[in-house]
Structures are given as structure tokens and as C-alpha cells.
């Protein structure tokens, strides 16, 4: 087994979202404290035709280093990583990213469930899974896996979400530790060490 590049207790925060989530993240990112004591992975449903502009868009809202993942990039605290369009984003035990272009899951690639489950598998109880606005059921099974691994689950308050279905689906079907507005989410993430 290779040495982990992060301290085993090092937290990983994975934020997943679909319709309405870009706006939510544009609100969240400027409020995140620099330097960030954890690694943040963002997985969004998006059209495959859109290229790397999402990372550029988010980079206008934060001083935290942010980039779209390439195959085998290392996961390090203090950085924001964006899942590329048209690939599932996985994490190896050695805490490097692996991309996977296999079949869509929940009609989506990247699928939120796939990354949540992979994070639960590698970071276990040090995983924080956050599900934002969206109009389908992706993410719920993944949050269940994070919960099972001893991690923590958060859903955007459906009343604050442009598309409430996705966070509401998770709240109804799995165990959610916190239901937050985007301001509350920023305050919570800033309290993590």
C-alpha cells in the first residue's frame, strides 16, 4: 500500500450539483477562507460540449487554486478540483484522481453518485458530501455511501435551491446531517480544520 499523500484525518469535501448549482457555487466560493484546510472536489452535471470554461468562471470568484482535473493528478489540501465534462471522476487509495469514460450513471457523466462513492471508499469518515440544487435523483446513493463510511452529509436547503428536487430527494431517502443555505454552508466549511 502506497503512502497517502494526505494525513489520513485530512478532510475531503465533495460538492455535487446539477441545474442551478453554478449560481449557488458562485455565491459560495467568495466566502471560503484562504488557505482552505481541506481538498474540495466539485462535480457538476454539464453539457459535454462545454469545455474547460467552468474552472475559469469559478476562478474569478476565489483566490483558492482551482483547476479542472486531468488523469492521475494528485489531490492536495487547499485546492479546488473540478470534474471534467464527460468523464466520471474517481479517487484512488493513493489519493490521486482517476478518470473513467464508461457508461452514464443516472443519465449523467460525470455522475455525482460515482464520485461520492469513490470518496467514501478512499477518505471514509473524513469525507464531507454536499448535495446542491438539481432536478434529478443523482447523489442520494452516493451520500448514503458516505454516511455508511462514517462521513458527513449536507444538503442545500430545498427552499434556497433553484431546483429543489435533488436535495429534497436526498433528505427524504437518506440520512442528512445538515440542511444549509449557501451562507450557512460557507460558515460550516470555514469552521472545518
Amino acid at each position, binding site marked *: 500500500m502506497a503512502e497517502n499523500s494526505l494525513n489520513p484525518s485530512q478532510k475531503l469535501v465533495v460538492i455535487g450539483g446539477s441545474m442551478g448549482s453554478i449560481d449557488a457555487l458562485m455565491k459560495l466560493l467568495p466566502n471560503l477562507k484562504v488557505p482552505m484546510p481541506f481538498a474540495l472536489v466539485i462535480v457538476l452535471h454539464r453539457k459535454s460540449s462545454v469545455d474547460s470554461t467552468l474552472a475559469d468562471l469559478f476562478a474569478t470568484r476565489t483566490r483558492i487554486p482551482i483547476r479542472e482535473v*486531468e488523469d*492521475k493528478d494528485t489531490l492536495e489540501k487547499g485546492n479546488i478540483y473540478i470534474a471534467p465534462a*464527460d468523464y466520471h471522476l*474517481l479517487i484512488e*487509495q493513493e489519493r*490521486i484522481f*482517476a478518470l473513467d469514460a*464508461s457508461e452514464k450513471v443516472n443519465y449523467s457523466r460525470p455522475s455525482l453518485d460515482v464520485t461520492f462513492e469513490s470518496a467514501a*471508499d478512499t477518505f471514509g469518515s473524513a469525507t464531507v458530501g454536499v448535495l446542491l440544487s438539481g432536478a434529478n435523483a443523482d447523489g442520494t446513493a452516493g451520500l448514503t455511501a458516505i454516511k455508511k463510511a462514517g462521513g458527513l452529509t449536507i444538503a442545500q436547503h430545498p427552499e434556497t435551491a433553484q431546483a429543489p428536487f435533488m436535495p429534497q430527494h436526498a433528505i427524504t431517502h437518506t440520512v442528512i446531517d445538515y440542511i444549509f443555505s449557501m451562507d450557512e454552508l460557507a460558515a460550516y466549511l470555514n469552521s472545518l480544520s
Partner: protein
Amino acid sequence: MIEEDEITILLSDLFELYGYDFTNYSKASLKRRILRLCSLDKFPSFAELRYRIKSDPTYLQRFVEEITVNVTEMFRDPQFYKTLRTEVLPSLGSKPFIRIWHAGCSTGEEVYSMAILLKELNLLHKSLLYATDLNPTVLEKARKGIFPLPHLKQYSENYILSGGIQDFSSYYTAHYGQVKFREELSEKMIFSTHNLVSDRSFNEFDLILCRNVLIYFDKDLQETVLRLFDESLGSLGYLALGSKETLKFSSVAAQYRQLNREKIWRKIH
């Protein structure tokens, strides 16, 4: 749930019994594929999957097909094909003969895309397209050049985005929900099994395409395969990878120069 050491056991079975070496594949991806197969084929436990693979060589074929990813499309990443059309292939045009290797070609959609580009650039008559995969079943599909009709709308859009100006439907005939691409496109294709993990170089090429194959390998195996490509490329030859794959971790990187933003590198030393 399947544990990491159970996967290790399964991989050593596969190697000892059948000679398939998956040990340097990405663990995260392999685990997903194996869990998916267990659920598709309703294995109640890992032990039952292992027993089936050990005792039933015909099931092995299904296992290999399902564990390896065969998602592909024609003119996948149209901008990439535009660069092939406008920069890469024209620079090979003065050669008397053009050899191209599609490594991990799956069901062949990208090989037919290449043949169409070569045809439109009037280079097909002096080209040879070697298309290889470890999986004989997908190669058989590729050889036939028959694809499902519902995908053709997307392929046609990709073709246009990649700079195609012909009537895309002139390249195939539709029949009962399937399309067959014209024989003249496949005349210059040579299909063969080749396992990037265990087989060696077999020719010298001007262009090697290996797109969305290396992502399923760990870094060590990626290095081995990139060296194999390096050995198989003539000087000033091109290497094309998938849109999120990179040479940056490899020892061969210093000998290559990347073309603008695309994942295409030219061998300069």
C-alpha cells in the same frame, strides 16, 4: 461490497489461468466495473463471481468485455478531429505512405472517422490503418463497420463540427436500424488483437491514436505503454491521447512537443 484484497485475488486468478494481466489497471475503476458486473449478473457474493470465472472459460469472455470500457463515438471531440484535418494529416501528406495505429480501437468508430478524413484529404489510397484491441469481440464489430442508426445523428453533428462539409449520409447505407459504412473506407484497415500490457511493438507509425485507454491504467503501466508508443513512432510522428490524458508524468515527455491545446504531441527528438 468487494475489498481491495479480493480484487487482487481475482486478478491473479485471471493471470494464472488465462494470461490476462489487469494488475496495473486503475484500482478505483476496476472495482467499479467488477461491482457493476456482480450486480448485472446477480452474483450474491465475490466468491461466486470468482468460482464462475475459474470454472467457466466462456464466462471469461463476458468478464473481459464488461470490465474493459468500450464507450466510443465517431468524431469524438470534434475540435480534436478538426486539428487532425487541418494540421496533422496535411503534414503527413507528402509522405509516400502513411501508417496509422489506433491502439485500443474498441468497436472502431474512431477508425472509420479517420478513414473519412483521409478520404476527404485524398490520402486514403496511400494509408494503412492498423486497429487493435485486446478484446476480439469488439474487433469483430469494428471489422464489420456496422453501427446502430440512432447514434448517427450525433455522429453527423460531430462530423460537421469537426469541419466536414460532405453529406455524411453518403458514407453509409441504413438498413433495419443499423448503418453499414462503405467498403472503400474499410479497405485500408487491418484489425488485430493486441494487448498493450503484454504485446510488443509491431511496426513503425506516423500517427498513433490511443484515446481514453490510458485512464484505465496506473502510472507505471501508463509509462510502459507510452514507451511502447515511443518505440513505435517514426521521427516527427504524432501521438494522440484522450482529452484529459497527458504525457506530463512520463519520461518520454521531453522528446515531444504538444500541438496548441489539443492532446496531440509531435516527436521532435
